């Protein structure tokens, strides 16, 4: 089955089941991508997991997204799923406003989402409702901001020996 066929097949099943909650679908390189509403994240993951034909039972990865220019859909979460039997891979994305960065946890379906959601919280400040232990995982506990959000500078803020004239800024 090629990517086009896979995209249509999964898209049709999802639209039949979740209707309006699937707001958009596209093919990004060799990945079918579905933009979904955050309210259905858990149900949709469970549906894809339990369905005997689709059987997306492996979550490859999960990460945060930040597009500062998308009004009211600045932050997002991306899930990448794998059907290991058929070697089908798909991506799900959900977006929400930066002033309300909450999304239901995926740990109810995939236990491996635990640390990945902690990492996403650590770097993007996304609150996963229902997560069993949502605290920082990689950065130091004392950190007061979410460093991968684009409003924060990448550089260390404590350097005082840098003359901008030498750095072309």
């Amino acid at each position, binding site marked *: 089955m090629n990517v086009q066929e896979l995209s249509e097949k999964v898209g049709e099943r999802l639209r039949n089941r979740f209707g309006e909650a699937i707001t958009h679908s596209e093919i990004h390189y060799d990945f079918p991508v579905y933009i979904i509403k955050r309210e259905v994240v858990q149900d949709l993951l469970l549906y894809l997991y339990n369905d005997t034909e689709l059987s997306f039972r492996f979550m490859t990865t999960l990460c945060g997204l930040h597009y500062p220019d998308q009004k009211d859909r600045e932050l997002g979460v991306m899930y990448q799923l794998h059907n290991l039997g058929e070697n089908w891979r798909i991506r799900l994305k959900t977006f929400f406003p930066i002033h309300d960065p909450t999304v239901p946890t995926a740990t109810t379906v995939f236990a491996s989402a635990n640390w990945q959601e902690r990492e996403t919280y650590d770097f993007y400040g996304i609150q996963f409702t229902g997560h069993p232990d949502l605290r920082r995982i990689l950065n*130091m506990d004392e950190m007061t901001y979410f460093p991968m959000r684009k409003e924060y500078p990448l550089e*260390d803020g404590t350097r005082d020996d840098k003359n901008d004239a030498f750095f072309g800024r």
Partner: protein
Amino acid sequence: MSDTIQLPGVNISAENTPAGLEGVGFFATRLDKVVGLARKNSLWPLPFATSCCGIEFMATMASHYDLARFGSERLSFSPRQADLLMVMGTIAKKMGPILRQVYEQMAEPKWVLSMGACASSGGIFDVYSVLQGIDRIMPVDVYIPGCPPRPEQVLEGILKIQDLVENESLRRRDSPEYKSMLTKYGIE
């Protein structure tokens, strides 16, 4: 007293003898000179190696460059027995408190050598997660520049440490400057 031993085709320089009185069967000199000499030539380094500088240090320890020639044969992997903390590699901010604890666990007298651009200044890693030089959390005696430095430079750094060990006061820890420096870092 001769400083060199002459062998056919080989010139091995022995340690410089401190000034003193010499006679048949005895040699008298200042105690601090003897202690300095002993300390200098039996440093036990604790290698705190986190990245590529650590690999370069392994080359320094191995037979080709052979740090053992300078009296540092024995690496100490316990801070309690180490004299010299060698910090080699990028130190993440999250690792800062651990490195500092290692330093605090070392007994006086102790020295710190910062190897490479990362340990000395953060290097190319000017980012939110990397400590911008270990001298932000602990005093440093010798910095070795380079990314990574060659083993020859590491040996040069060790020799600089040896100079310090040989020549500074045996009770450096009691001096007001040393105490005030530690206070500045918040180390008791």
